[in-house]
C-alpha cells in the first residue's frame, strides 16, 4: 500500500520507504471572466521512491494543473494553496530562485509535446550539458561527456555524433528521449511525466514508456505519470488516482482500481473505453452528460448530475475521499453500497435502449459498391527556401492503394501518422482526377468530364466529418447556417433548407433550440454531432470520417460512436473511417485496411484481422495498444518495434516495412534479399476470404 490517507502519516509497513513527494490539500485556482476557475481542489497524494503513481482524468480534470502546481510552473496569476512536501520541505510559496534550485535537481519533468519542448536553436548536447551545469559544478568537457552518456542511456544511436545535432533533425520519439534525458540528468528523486506519449504514435509510445522505466530504475526516482490513457496506466502504474472536475475521486492500487472500481465515474469510464483485446459484447456504454464547468461548482458531488447511483445527499454535500476496505480510497457517498455489491458496479450504466437489441445485424446481402479506389497514388514535392522554392525531393504520400466500399458497410483505414490514410481521404473528397489511379464514386469516374450539375450530384453523394469539430465548424457561424451551407451549395431553396435543418438536428439527437448557438457555446460532443449532421445534410451515400472521435474525451466518445452506428443502420450509409485507434476501429469497422508508408500492407474482415493478423506490422500495431486491464496488460507479450516510420520521401526499393520488421533478421538470406529488392504485393492470406496481406515471409 502506498496511498496514504490525506493528512495522516503513511501506514507503518511503508515507513521504511518514506515518500519522496507528499502533496497535501493542493488547490489551484485561475481567475477568469466568469469568476475563479477551481482547476484543482484539495488534492493529496504520496509518491514513493521507485514506484509509479498514475494520475488519470479527462481533459479539464485538473491533472496537468496539479503537476504544474507541484513544479511551481503555473502562470503567475494562479492561486495555489496547500503543501507540496519534497523531502520534508514545503515548495508552495517558495520564490523562483529557490524553486529553480529544486527543479531539475530534485524533480525532473517530461512534457507532452516533444516537438516544441526543446529549444530549436541549441544543439541537443548543449541543452543537456547546460542542464547538468545548472546544478553541478562540472567543466564544460565533463558535462558534455556526461550528456553523451545520458543520450546513450535513453537509446539515442551514435550519441557522440548526435549530441551535436539540433532538435529539428530528430524525430518526435527521439526528441522525447532527449527530454527524458534532461529530466533524469541530475538524478532527481521524483520524475513527473505529463502525457509523455500522447503526441506520439502507438509503436513509439511503447519505446518511450520503456525509456521512462529505464530512467526510473537508473535514478531510483518516484514517477508521477499523468495520462488520459487508461491502458498506459494499467501497464505502468503501481497506484492510480482518478481525477474528475479538479478532485481525486478514487485512488487505489492498479489491480484494485481496475479489478474493483468503486466510484461510479471510474466504473463508467472503464465501461466506455473500447477494448482492443476483445470484441466487446457489442455496444459501448456511454456515461452520458458532460463534465461540469469548473466555475462556480455546486456544493454537491460534481459527478452527481451524470451519476446513475446519485441520491439526494450527493447533490447537496461533496463526499470526502475515504478509505473503503478492499477498494482503496473513494470520494462517493454510495461507495460502501457499491463495494457491497448493491447496486452492482456492472449494472450501473446501461447501454442506450435503441442499441440494446442486436448490435450489428448480419450483413447477409452486401450492398452495391458505392466507392471504388484503384491504384491510387499521390506525391507531394518537397521544397526548400522561402522565396525561391527549389524542389529537393518527392514525398510519396500514397502509393498504389486500392479498395472498394459497399453500401451499409464500414471500411476502416488504420495506420500511424504519415501512413497516408488522411491523404487518401482527401484525394477522394477533392473530386478531381487523381495523380494516378482511379476513383469511382457511385459508378462515376471522378476523372471523367462532367457538367456542373453532375458535380453537384457527386458532392451530394460523398461528405466528410473531420477530426476536430472545433476546427471544422466555422466559429463565426451559428449552427443553423453551418447546417444550411452544404444545402445552399447544391442549390436547395430557402424553405427546404429550414425544414431539412430541423430534421438534421433531431436526427443527431440535438435540441432544435441549439440552432442559433455558435460552436463555441456547444460542448465537444454537441459540436461533433453538428459536424455529423452537416455531413448528412445532402443525404449522401458515403460518409468519410477522419478520426471522428479522437478529439473527444472517452466518456463522450462512446456516445458519438453509438450515434454513428445508429445512423448507418437507419440510412444505409457507407462509412470510410480513418483512425489510428485500433480499439475504436474494432468497434465500428466491418473491414479494415492497415496502411504503412502509403501502402496497404494488410486488409480483411475486422475480426479476422484482429485474431489472425498476418503482416508483422499489423501484429506489432495490435500488440502496441495498451489494454486497460493490468492483468492482461502485464502478462501479455509485447512486440516493441525499433525506430519510427521513416519519411515517405525516399521509399525503399523492396518492402516498405523491411527496416523495422521484427521478422526480417530471422529470415534466411534469400528471403531477406527479396524483402530488400522486391515490393511485396497484396495476396490472399487464406483461400475463400478477402483477408489479404503483403509480405514475402508469411
Amino acid at each position, binding site marked *: 500500500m502506498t496511498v496514504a490517507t490525506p493528512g495522516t502519516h503513511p501506514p507503518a509497513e511503508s515507513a521504511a520507504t518514506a515518500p519522496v513527494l507528499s502533496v497535501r490539500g493542493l488547490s489551484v485556482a485561475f481567475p477568469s471572466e466568469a469568476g475563479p476557475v477551481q482547476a484543482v481542489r484539495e488534492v493529496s497524494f504520496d509518491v514513493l521512491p521507485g514506484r509509479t503513481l498514475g494520475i488519470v482524468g479527462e481533459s479539464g480534470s485538473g491533472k496537468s494543473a496539479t503537476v504544474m502546481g507541484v513544479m511551481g510552473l503555473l502562470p503567475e496569476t494562479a492561486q495555489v494553496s496547500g503543501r507540496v512536501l519534497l523531502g520534508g520541505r514545503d515548495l508552495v510559496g517558495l520564490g523562483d530562485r529557490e524553486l529553480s*534550485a529544486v527543479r531539475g535537481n530534485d524533480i525532473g519533468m517530461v512534457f507532452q509535446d516533444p516537438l516544441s*519542448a526543446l529549444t530549436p*536553436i541549441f544543439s541537443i548536447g548543449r541543452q543537456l550539458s547546460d542542464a547538468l551545469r545548472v546544478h553541478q559544478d562540472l567543466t564544460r568537457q565533463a558535462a558534455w561527456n556526461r550528456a553523451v552518456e545520458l543520450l546513450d542511456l535513453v537509446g539515442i544511436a551514435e550519441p557522440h555524433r548526435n549530441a551535436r545535432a539540433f532538435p529539428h533533425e530528430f524525430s518526435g520519439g527521439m526528441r522525447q528521449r532527449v527530454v527524458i534525458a534532461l529530466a533524469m540528468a541530475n538524478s532527481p528523486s521524483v520524475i513527473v511525466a505529463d502525457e509523455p506519449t500522447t503526441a506520439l504514435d502507438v509503436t513509439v509510445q511503447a519505446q518511450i514508456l520503456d525509456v521512462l522505466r529505464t530512467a526510473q530504475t537508473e535514478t531510483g526516482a518516484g514517477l508521477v505519470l499523468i495520462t488520459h490513457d487508461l491502458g498506459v496506466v494499467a501497464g505502468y502504474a503501481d497506484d492510480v488516482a482518478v481525477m474528475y472536475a479538479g478532485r481525486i475521486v478514487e485512488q487505489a492500487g492498479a489491480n484494485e482500481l481496475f479489478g474493483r472500481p468503486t466510484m461510479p465515474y471510474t466504473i463508467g469510464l472503464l465501461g466506455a473505453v473500447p477494448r482492443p483485446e476483445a470484441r466487446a459484447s457489442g455496444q459501448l456504454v456511454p456515461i452520458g452528460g458532460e463534465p461540469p464547468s469548473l466555475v462556480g461548482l455546486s456544493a454537491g458531488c460534481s459527478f452527481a448530475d451524470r451519476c446513475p447511483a446519485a441520491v439526494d445527499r450527493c447533490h447537496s454535500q461533496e463526499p470526502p475521499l475515504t478509505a473503503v476496505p478492499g477498494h482503496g480510497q473513494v470520494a462517493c457517498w454510495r461507495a460502501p453500497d457499491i463495494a457491497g455489491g448493491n447496486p452492482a458496479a456492472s449494472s450501473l450504466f446501461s447501454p442506450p435502449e435503441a442499441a440494446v437489441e442486436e448490435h450489428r445485424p448480419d450483413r447477409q446481402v452486401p450492398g452495391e459498391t458505392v466507392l471504388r479506389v484503384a491504384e491510387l497514388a499521390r506525391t507531394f514535392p518537397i521544397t526548400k527556401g522561402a522565396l525561391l522554392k527549389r524542389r529537393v525531393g518527392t514525398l510519396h504520400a500514397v502509393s498504389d492503394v486500392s479498395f472498394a466500399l459497399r453500401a451499409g458497410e464500414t471500411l476502416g483505414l488504420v495506420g500511424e501518422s504519415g501512413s497516408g490514410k488522411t491523404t487518401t481521404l482527401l484525394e477522394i473528397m477533392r473530386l478531381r482526377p487523381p495523380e494516378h489511379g482511379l476513383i469511382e464514386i457511385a459508378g462515376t469516374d471522378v476523372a471523367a468530364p462532367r457538367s456542373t450539375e453532375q458535380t453537384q450530384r457527386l458532392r451530394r453523394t460523398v461528405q466528410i466529418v473531420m477530426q476536430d469539430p472545433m476546427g471544422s465548424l466555422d466559429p463565426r457561424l451559428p449552427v443553423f447556417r453551418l447546417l444550411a451551407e452544404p444545402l445552399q451549395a447544391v442549390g436547395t431553396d430557402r424553405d427546404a433548407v429550414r425544414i431539412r435543418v430541423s430534421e438534421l438536428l433531431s436526427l443527431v439527437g440535438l435540441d432544435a433550440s441549439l440552432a442559433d448557438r455558435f460552436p463555441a457555446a456547444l460542448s465537444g460532443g454537441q459540436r461533433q454531432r453538428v459536424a455529423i449532421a452537416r455531413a448528412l445534410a445532402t443525404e449522401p451515400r458515403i460518409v468519410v470520417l477522419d478520426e471522428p472521435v479522437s478529439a473527444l474525451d472517452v466518456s463522450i466518445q462512446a456516445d458519438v460512436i453509438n450515434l454513428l452506428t445508429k445512423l448507418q443502420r437507419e440510412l444505409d450509409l457507407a462509412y470510410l473511417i480513418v483512425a489510428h485507434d485500433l480499439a475504436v476501429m474494432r468497434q465500428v469497422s466491418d473491414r479494415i485496411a492497415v496502411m504503412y508508408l502509403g501502402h496497404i500492407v494488410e486488409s480483411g474482415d475486422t475480426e479476422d484481422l484482429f485474431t489472425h493478423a498476418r503482416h508483422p506490422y499489423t501484429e506489432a500495431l495490435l500488440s502496441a495498444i495498451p489494454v486497460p486491464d493490468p492483468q492482461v496488460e502485464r502478462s501479455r507479450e509485447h512486440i516493441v518495434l525499433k525506430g519510427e516510420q521513416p519519411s515517405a520521401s525516399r521509399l525503399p526499393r523492396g518492402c516498405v516495412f523491411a527496416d523495422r520488421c521484427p521478422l526480417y533478421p530471422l529470415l534466411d538470406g534469400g528471403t531477406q534479399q527479396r524483402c530488400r529488392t522486391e515490393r511485396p504485393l497484396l495476396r490472399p492470406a487464406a483461400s475463400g476470404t478477402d483477408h489479404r496481406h503483403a509480405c514475402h515471409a508469411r
Partner: protein
Amino acid sequence: MIVVATNVTYLLAAWFLDPRSNYRGLRPVRTEEQIDHALAPYNLDPRAPLADRWWHWFSDVLLHFDWGKSPVGASVNSEIGFRVVVSGQLVTAATLLSVVAGVALSVFTASRQYGWWDRMTQLVSVFLFNVPAAVAALAVVFAGIWLNQHLGWRLLYVAGEKSPDVSGLWPTVADRFQHLVLPTLSLTLLGYVGYHLTQRSLLLDNINSDFVRTARATGLTRAQAIRRHALRASLIPTATSVAFSIPAIFTGAVITETVFGWNGMGQYFVQTIAKNDVHGAVAVAAFGAGMTAIGAILADIAVVVLDPRVRVR
C-alpha cells in the same frame, strides 16, 4: 529587385515630373520649342519618346554609372557623391542604435513584465510611436538649443552636417560628431520604438513557449531562461524585420534632414521633386532601394547565424 524598382521609379518620375515648367516662369519668356530644345542635351526632351529616353538613361547608368543631369544641366553624380555618405552615416547609425536600444529595453522589461519599469518604458514607447517625425525632430532641435543655451557654449549643432571651417583630423571628427548627435537621436527615438514593442511581445510569446518551460524545469530561473533560451529564438523574426524597416527609417531621414538642414539624400529628394529633376529623384530612389537591399542581405546573414534550422549541414 533594385534594378526593377529603380526603373519603375524612372518611368513614374518621367511621367509625373514636368521639367518644362521650370523654364516657363523664366524671363525672357521662351517658346515651348525653345524649352524642349534646352532640355534635349540633358535627355529630358519631352518630344523624344519615353522609351528612347529611358534606354538612354538606363544604358548610361549601366555602362558609365552616370545617373544623368538635372534640368539645369548639373550632374546628378556630383550632387549625390557626398550626400550618399552623409545620409548613409545617418541611416546606419540610427538603425544600429534603434535595434540595440529596442532589443536591450525589451529584454530588460520583459523579464520584469508588468513591473514599474515595464509600464514606464512601454508608456514612453507608445507615446513616441505616435509622434510624427517632424514633431520629434523639432522637439530634439528645441532641446538641443535649450541645452546649448544653458551650457553657454555650442555643444551640439542643430543645423548642417559639418562646419565649413574645421581642419585637422580630430577637430573634424569631433565636429562631425557634434553635428551627428541630434539628428541621429531624433531618428533613433522614432526607430527604437518598433523594436522595443515588437521584441517585447515576441519575447513574451516565447516566454510562454514549451521550450522555455522545459528550460525552467531543468532548473533555470525565469530570468535566466528568458536570457538564454527565449531571447535568441525571438531575435530571428526581428532580424528579418530590420530590412523592411529601412524604408521607414529612410523616410524619417528625409524629414530629419529637412529639419536639421543636412545636405543629404533626403533633402536632395525634396529639392529634386520640387525642381522636377527626374534623374535626381530616381537616383535617390535607387539609393533607398539599395539601402533596403543591403539591409535584407545583412538580415539574411543574421538569420543564418541565429537559426540552425536554415543552415545547410
